[in-house]
């Protein structure tokens, strides 16, 4: 272990643990997923960075949205996101989740992912190289260190608005709200 980091480990062991053991849920949304197999396998080996793909959202704390998000996928994304345990981090990968990318005038792709779930970081590009994922991961470390990757807290606090946006675009959602919704008179 790096000796300079001992004080950090002593101060916030949980935080350091989260930082160096990111379990990415293996969820494919768009074309960007094609970059993920080389990232997690021998060629680039994401385990050097503590990123490991897991099969179930219950075990994951990193959600890579790899590409354009259609309405049907958005539904699956919200359900997956709500099943992940706190703390959880979302990284939008590629220009499509950022602002629509080349699907900016499509009838079935949502343009801004952060209107529906909170996103902690973005990796721009169409599609980004595997190196960009690692740069993204190191940026995410910095954010976790500085307590800035607080998307899941924002989701809890602003759940009402998020749920409203989700319902505006998807119609009535068939699952119960994750957090209680206060009814305003």
């Amino acid at each position, binding site marked *: 272990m790096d000796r300079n980091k001992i004080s950090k480990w002593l101060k916030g062991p949980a935080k350091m643990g989260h930082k160096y053991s990111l379990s990415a849920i293996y969820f494919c949304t768009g074309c960007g997923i094609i970059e993920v197999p080389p990232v997690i396998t021998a060629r680039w080996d994401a385990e050097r960075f503590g990123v490991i793909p897991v099969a179930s959202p219950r075990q994951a704390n990193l959600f890579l949205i790899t590409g354009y998000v259609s309405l049907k996928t958005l539904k699956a994304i919200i359900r997956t996101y709500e099943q992940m345990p706190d703390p959880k981090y979302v990284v939008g990968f590629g220009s499509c989740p950022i602002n*629509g990318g080349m699907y900016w005038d499509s009838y079935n792709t949502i343009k801004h992912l*952060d209107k529906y779930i909170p996103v902690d970081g973005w990796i721009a590009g169409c599609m980004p190289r595997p190196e960009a994922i690692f740069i993204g991961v190191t940026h995410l470390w910095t954010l976790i260190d500085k307590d800035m990757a607080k998307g899941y807290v924002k989701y809890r606090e602003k759940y009402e608005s998020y749920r409203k946006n989700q319902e505006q675009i998807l119609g009535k959602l068939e699952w119960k709200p994750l957090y209680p919704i206060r009814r305003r008179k």
Partner: protein
Amino acid sequence: MNKELLTEILATFKKTQGYIEKDNRLFIETKKEIVPALLKYFKDKSFDRLAMVSCVDRINENKLEIIYILTSFCLDNPLNIILKIKISRNEPELDTVIPIFENAEPYEREIHELFGVDFIGHPRLTPLFLEREYEIPPFRKDFDMRKYSEELFDSVPFVGDEK
């Protein structure tokens, strides 16, 4: 061999035009009533794989063009048979070809959803890809995608911005 096939088709079926392009594409233009008979004919000739069913919106002619592509698994002949028909754009109706080629089901569902073509006799024309209802089927040329996406997606506020 392909030329002979073409002459045979033209002799057997009336109201049919055909030509060969690039040696391995046999185009046939016909009327929609003849399609089941033609597909059955090709199936008996061992063109037993319906590769796809597709649709083109010919808005200038006010027609929808349905395209069936057939290939063969068992013949040693790399020929694609491309069957084109035009149907009216205002009342797009067509008999399903599921009794002949079962794998036409998802294609027909897709065309029904994206172009609004009614396939008579199709067992379940339920939505396949789309989550929302569209007034005009979205792949028709008169569907204004930009306006639609601006109205729908840009009206959702960013969380934290709304009043």
